Each structure stands twice: as structure tokens, then as C-alpha cells.
């Protein structure tokens, strides 16, 4: 007994100098792990779990899906192309109104200027990958009730409730299409300027996106502006809020700032070349 106490004392003494017992330096209980190697000798190497006789004993592993002569399950039903062209569809990664409000509260986005893809990407918290068929951001309705900012924002997709949430605060929302090349530039404008290449022209939307971006209900950038102002009023009546008058707003100029359908950056025209080193703009002369 005394011997046992002595050894346990020794163990405890040793434990004090050892690192803390935690998940990283524990080892499995003895005999809890099975040996990976199979025995080869008379009784160690009997069946190795492969059973007695037949296909099983020969370890004749059949190919995946093969049902020993039956029509295999994976061939039993005719093919239905549910996901045809799925890998080619345009994607719009979500940006929720809550996220946007956090970005504004933490001073990552300046709401005294119009917001577009470049502003969102320059915040450093969201990225856009045009190479993975991401065609811009969609503004989603999470945090809709707590959204209180007056902004001029341009996104690529927005639902009706989101449009109402932005316009209720006296803001302006627009949905606009950018072709992948322009998206690549907008995802990192500084890198593009450093290349020393003229700003390209923005392409028009593809055929299947024209209907969306010419619809005033979606606040499309190709829609008739008069129709949009009418739809703003209609939406205000539908959701039951009084539409703030932008004409009387002190930030009228910022709120009505919009890009041309062929323009990539606010205030900068296609064909111009930006020199960041000399702080010079090279403009082609008009002929």
C-alpha cells in the first residue's frame, strides 16, 4: 500500500512539471485502437474479416453502382436536365441591409457619396469575383427594419421590399448591369489605374437581362426616369410611407448622381487614362 502511495505521489509530482492536460496532448485509451496490420501466420491470418468462400473472400470489390446484374439504380430513370446551364448562370452574392448599416456605422462606407461596387469592395470587407460568374451584389432584406441611412446606392439586383426600405429613408436605389470586364475593374479600381490603360466602355446588358434593367419597378438604369418617379410614388403608397421629397433635399446633387449607361466610374468618362503617379488625367481630344 505504501508502495502504491509513493508511486502516485511520484506521478503527481511529475504531473506538476508537465504541460497542462488538454485535448491536444492526450492519447487514446490503451487497446481502444485496432491494429492496421493483418496477421500472416497460422492463426493470425485466418479470414481477415473477409468471410468464408465466394466473391467476398476474394475481395472482389465491384465497381460503384454495380448491382450484380440488376439494372443499376443510377440507370433506372431517364435523365432530366434540372440544372442545365446552371454553371453558366449569373450570380449575385448577397449584401444585406444589416451588413450595409454596419458598414455605415463603422465608417467603412461614406454615405455622403454615391455607393457602387467599387465603394463596397474598397471597404475591404466584401469581395467580388467576376471570374466565378459573380456579376455584382444583390441587396437583401435582412435587417430591413433597422435600416436608417439615406443613401444613393447602385446594386445589381434588389427586391421590392429592399427598394422600399431605401426610398423610405429618402434614399435612391438603382439596379445596373456591368459586363465581367468592367466588374473586374470595379472590384479593384486602384489596380486598374496602375496598369495605365484607358477606361473602357461599359457594355450593354445581355438579352435575358434587358427586361430586368429596363423595368422601372426594379429601378433599372435603362428605365424611363419618369416611370421610375411614378413607381417610387406607387411603392410608397403600397408600403404606406410618405415619400421624402428629394428635390428639396440639401443633398440633392449627391442623391441624383448617376452614371451613364456606358460609363464605368462616377465623373470619369471611358477613354480617359488615369495616371496615379503624376496625378494627371489624359483625355483624348475631341475631333
Amino acid at each position: 500500500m505504501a508502495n502504491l502511495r509513493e508511486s502516485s505521489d511520484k506521478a503527481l509530482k511529475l504531473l506538476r512539471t508537465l504541460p497542462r492536460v488538454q485535448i491536444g496532448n492526450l492519447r487514446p485509451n490503451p487497446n481502444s485502437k485496432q491494429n492496421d496490420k493483418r496477421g500472416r501466420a497460422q492463426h493470425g491470418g485466418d479470414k481477415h474479416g473477409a468471410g468464408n468462400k465466394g466473391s467476398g473472400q476474394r475481395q472482389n470489390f465491384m465497381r460503384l453502382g454495380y448491382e450484380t446484374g440488376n439494372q443499376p439504380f443510377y440507370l433506372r430513370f431517364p435523365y432530366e436536365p434540372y440544372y442545365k446551364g446552371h454553371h453558366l448562370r449569373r450570380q449575385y452574392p448577397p449584401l444585406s441591409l444589416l451588413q450595409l448599416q454596419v458598414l455605415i456605422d463603422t465608417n467603412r462606407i461614406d454615405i455622403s457619396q454615391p455607393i457602387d461596387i467599387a465603394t463596397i469592395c474598397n471597404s475591404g470587407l466584401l469581395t467580388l469575383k467576376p471570374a466565378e460568374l459573380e456579376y455584382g451584389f444583390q441587396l437583401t432584406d435582412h435587417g430591413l427594419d433597422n435600416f436608417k441611412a439615406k443613401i444613393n446606392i447602385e446594386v445589381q439586383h434588389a427586391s421590392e421590399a429592399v427598394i422600399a426600405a431605401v426610398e423610405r429613408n429618402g434614399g435612391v436605389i438603382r439596379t445596373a448591369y456591368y459586363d465581367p470586364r468592367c466588374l473586374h475593374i470595379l472590384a479593384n479600381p486602384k489596380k486598374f489605374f496602375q496598369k495605365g490603360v484607358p477606361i473602357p466602355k461599359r457594355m450593354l446588358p445581355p438579352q435575358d437581362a434587358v427586361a430586368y434593367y429596363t423595368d422601372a419597378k426594379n429601378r433599372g438604369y435603362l428605365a424611363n426616369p419618369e416611370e421610375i418617379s411614378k413607381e417610387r410614388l406607387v411603392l410608397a403608397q403600397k408600403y404606406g410611407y410618405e415619400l421624402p421629397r428629394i428635390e428639396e433635399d440639401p443633398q440633392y446633387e449627391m442623391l441624383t448622381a448617376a452614371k451613364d449607361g456606358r460609363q464605368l466610374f462616377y465623373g470619369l468618362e471611358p477613354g480617359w487614362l488615369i495616371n496615379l503617379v503624376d496625378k494627371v488625367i489624359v483625355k483624348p481630344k475631341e475631333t
Partner: protein
Amino acid sequence: MAATTKLTLWPKLSQQLIRLINTQPALHSNFRSSKVVEPLDQYPEVEIVHNAPEWKYVERLLPPRIVPQPKPKESYPSGWQPQTANASERSYYIARTKNHMVPVYLHTRFRGQRRLTVVRRVQGDIWALERDLRAVVESARNGKLCASRVNELSGQIYFHGDYVDVLRDHLKSQGF
């Protein structure tokens, strides 16, 4: 005679053929594969504008070099709020992250079977903080006990289960 000419011609030809098959055209860098400069009158006329009034639009497109400091405001509708706790008031302190967020995270392991709530960036008396936070978690569990682990070396506390929102709200209410 004919045989000797064949022999002399053959190695050259074969070498050329092999080079054709085995080598691709060299992929030069952007600079080397760019077009050669043509005479200047072939290019369109340009105007170089110094101090252009449009330069403000360019500056707007350049990202900030460091994470901007949040400006003090009357209200923060998103629920985010700046840190108000003073490090000297309590025996412990939790620093905000570089993005000015409360460092409480959810670790999911084993395909979501195990969920751990991690409180990071703890300074000072981590054991006192663990006692306080454990009381919060246990009240959220209707008084049931909860497992926790303290790593005082790295300043982290682990709680078993998903109590991210509970702990983050509690820490915010304490001013951290």
C-alpha cells in the same frame, strides 16, 4: 552518294521537327508581349490635364490605406456600438478586433455536431471573466451547468454550445 546526303540532312530535319512538336511559343511577360510603339502621329491626339477637376472622383475610388476609425454618432441603428469600457475599472479587459468588432466567435467542428463559442483577446484576470460569462451562459440555459475551458496563455475562453449572440450582447452591455 545518295545515302550520305540523306544522312547529313536527316539530323537537321529531325531536330527542327522535334523543336516544333516539343516547344510552345514563349509566353513573355506583359511588357515583352506588348505592342511595339508606333510613330506618334499614328495615335489619337490627347490632352494631358494637370489638376483636373475630375481628380476628386479618382481619389474617391482609391481604398483607404488603414481601417478607418469609427466616427462618434448619436445612434447606431445596426446594433454595433463603440467600446466604452475602461481597462482600469475592471480586473479584466477584452480588446476589440482590428475591424472594431467584439471578438466572440462560433467554432463548428465535426460537421456542425460540436459547437463552441470562443471569446478571444482577453486581458487581465481571465478566471474572473470566465466566472461572469459562465453565469450568463447558465442563465441562458435555464440554470443548467455548462462546460467551459480557459486558455489563459492565449487569452481565450471556450464555452460548449452556441452562445455567440448571448455573450456578444452581454459584453456589449458591459461596454466591451
